[in-house]
């Protein structure tokens, strides 16, 4: 057993060396990053889990767009919907406890809780994706333009960014959510996205400020490339790391913001449900019917946790500074080891 461990350790260090050697042997940037990402076990596991949760939720609940008056709906495979009120299942201590027909139990009215939770998760994931898309696009474009052109364009755009930053996101969310919550979750998500790009744009700007001074940009300019082409074809791929990492963090923030808004009643409005509104509605029945409280919370946590771990894995993959640091012990070990990996 111990021998096996030793062998695994040797293989691991060799794997690390191998990757380091490959870098010099001419792997493309994408391949190196993919390799580094797949070495981050929690991130890979989270990615698989998140994909599974997303597919499961959307297939179970279906997809609901549009407003209450004009719904655009694709039905999911789960037999109950939000409005169905099947017979309540009675058990010893409380009503509506989980059974085979209702795996998550039933709420006090008798609605199937699995359907409610899946619907809530569908809303949350939808908000997360839309906010990520809009916020990511806006932040990237604004940051890129302001970092690339500098001068007055930069000044105007960055003051505009400061201006949006002064307005706390929960205030914006509450004002907009209170007014537009009944327009459905997509509208809410779009509004949230319109105000969540500020941090990203600052980061992208910083990255562009340093990248635009590099030789490859001069080369592209000499070759006659337009500004548009230089920004999007030459500089942007080099700033992708910062963008992807920051967008994943934005996603995790978005899901927590949406659930928090719905919790205080400014987000998704009844009769529609969200994970936040479910918790807010059933928190008092925690002692009697704990399943009403646990399921939505567990879903929020698992989605946010997966996204955070994926973000961490991506940061490790993109940012070589975060690689294992060389300690005194390593230096000693390296000094007294035969230089086999040098070849």
């Amino acid at each position, binding site marked *: 057993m111990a021998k096996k461990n030793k062998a695994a350790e040797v293989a691991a260090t060799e794997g690390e060396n191998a990757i380091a050697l490959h870098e010099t042997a001419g792997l493309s940037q994408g391949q190196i990053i993919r390799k580094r990402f797949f070495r981050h076990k929690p991130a890979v596991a989270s990615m698989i889990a998140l994909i599974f949760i997303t597919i499961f939720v959307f297939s179970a609940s279906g997809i609901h767009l549009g407003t209450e008056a004009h719904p655009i709906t694709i039905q999911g495979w789960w037999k109950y919907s939000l409005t169905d009120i099947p017979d309540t299942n009675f058990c010893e201590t409380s009503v509506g406890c989980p059974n085979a027909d209702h795996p998550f139990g039933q709420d006090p009215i008798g609605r199937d809780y699995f359907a409610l939770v899946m619907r809530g998760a569908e809303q949350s994931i939808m908000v997360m994706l839309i906010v990520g898309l809009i916020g990511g696009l806006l932040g990237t474009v604004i940051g890129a333009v302001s970092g690339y052109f500098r001068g007055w364009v930069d000044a105007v755009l960055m003051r505009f960014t400061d201006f949006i930053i002064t*307005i706390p996101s929960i205030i914006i969310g509450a004002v907009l959510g209170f007014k537009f919550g009944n327009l459905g979750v997509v509208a809410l998500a779009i509004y949230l996205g319109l105000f969540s790009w500020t941090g990203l744009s600052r980061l992208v700007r910083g990255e562009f400020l340093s990248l635009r001074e590099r030789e490859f940009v001069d080369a592209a300019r000499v070759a006659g490339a337009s500004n548009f082409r230089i920004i999007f074809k030459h500089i942007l791929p080099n700033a992708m790391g910062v963008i992807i990492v920051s967008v994943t963090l934005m996603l995790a923030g978005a899901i927590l913001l949406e659930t*928090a808004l719905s919790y205080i009643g400014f987000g998704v409005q009844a009769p529609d449900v969200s994970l936040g509104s479910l918790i807010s509605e059933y928190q008092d029945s925690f002692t009697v019917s704990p399943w009403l409280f646990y399921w939505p919370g567990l879903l929020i946590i698992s989605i946010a946790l997966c996204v955070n771990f994926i973000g961490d894995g991506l940061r490790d993959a993109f940012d070589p500074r975060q690689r294992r640091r060389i300690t005194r012990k390593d230096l000693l070990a390296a000094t007294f080891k035969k230089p086999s990996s040098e070849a």
Partner: protein
Amino acid sequence: MLAFIARRIGVVLLILFGSSFLVYNLEAIAGDPLAELRTSSAKNRDFLMHHLIMQLQLDVPPPIRYFSWLKGVLGVFTGNPDLGKTRDNLLVINEISAAIPVTIRLVLGATILAIVLGITVGVITAIRQYSRLDYTMTFISFLMFSLPIFWVAVLLKQYMAIDFNNFLASGQITWPWIIGTAVVMGLVVAGLISGDRRRVITLFAGGFVATIVLLLVVNATNWILKPGLGIVGVGLFAAGFAVGLTSLIVGFENKRVLYASLTVALTAVIAYFPLNAAWDGKSMNAAMLLIPFVLLILVAVGAVFGFTKVDRGSALRVTIITAVFASLFLLIDRLMTTWNGYINADGINLRPIPTIGEVSVRLSSDNFWILLMDGLVHVILPTVALTLISFAGYVRYSRASLLEVMNMDYIRTARAKGLSERTVIVRHALRNAMIPLTTLMAFDFAGVIGGAIITESVFGWHGMGTLFRAAISTQDLNLLMGVFAITSFMAVMANLVADLLYSALDPRIRAGK
């Protein structure tokens, strides 16, 4: 530098003007303050509507109404600011000044705790990168990062308040709890100190047995119901901090620093009885809580100048931190002796941890310590919830920052010239690693005033967050703008302070360039 600050303040004012204009109009257009009255069936509906229109100047278009609001706010410069009136005809400024102390009480402790704990854990995990402890803490901090506070709050109410109150009926820790706590403590001890397998097992066993013995003593002395440190406990803790901090910051080669910090601990012991006598006096007030802090810090400064001649900066740091902690232990000891009186007081009846509210309504006592205790137990749950949430951010940031610094060339230089690992980390790495965290801290302290909307709502506090919620749901424009003006002002000032601090701490960054 002055020109830079002046220019920045100019820009800040412009931004504040713009964002308040935007929010004012957004809310004025989005919300309809008359909505409720429109559907009402009261006989005098039209009169009420007319009255409200006149009171809130709703007949004036929002962009123009904004300027009359702004004129009132600009009264700050002449000494009589006017933030307008709420729908219920109350002065907004009074509402806000009543809410701010509540909010500060709620959030300040949690912010400080999160910063101290978060940075400590972040630094430890960075030093022990890729250890079991690091992996565990990384997982825990990610978990906390992903927790919705309203969900945690409900769990805390159940397990930290209701169940703890039930437990107080007997006050005896049961065996499953003793074993569980001992296992956790053993793991923590084993995780903190690195070593080979044998040493880890020894450490685990040591932590495990020590915890069991400690908890049995707690049970035997009925400590949960009648806690206290006593003069011995205070002395031991203070001396422990003196020795620990000395070894951590300057090391034992410099004996004089150790003598200076032990002097502080000794002073705490000598001051124990006179201080408690003073605190028990009739004229006890909040300012008197500061006595040990002032006294011990003065002793700390005196001891440093008496004992040491070189490197007084580090010595001061050691002794002053020791003084602060020794004073805290004196205070904690006094509070502990209040505990039994508090839980048996009328209106508490052995259920001390409340799930909601700011003070116990039914408590009738004019004893300073009982009232202080009452305020403290009400802060416990919100503080734990808020600390859990923001702690994770500090762990992540301080760990990443320290790791980045540890890869720098100057750290290699410091090691190459033969400095001890402690000096390298404390003097070279840590100081530089903390610079980026100033931004985060500045924003967190600014956020203190803004409050925690969700936390206030879960725990039933009436601070800024509650005002804000009320303003949104009753369409109270002036109230909303009042809250917004304060929070956004704090946010931009934090931004400015962070920039200035940054350039002061890091000479490579030049402000204004």
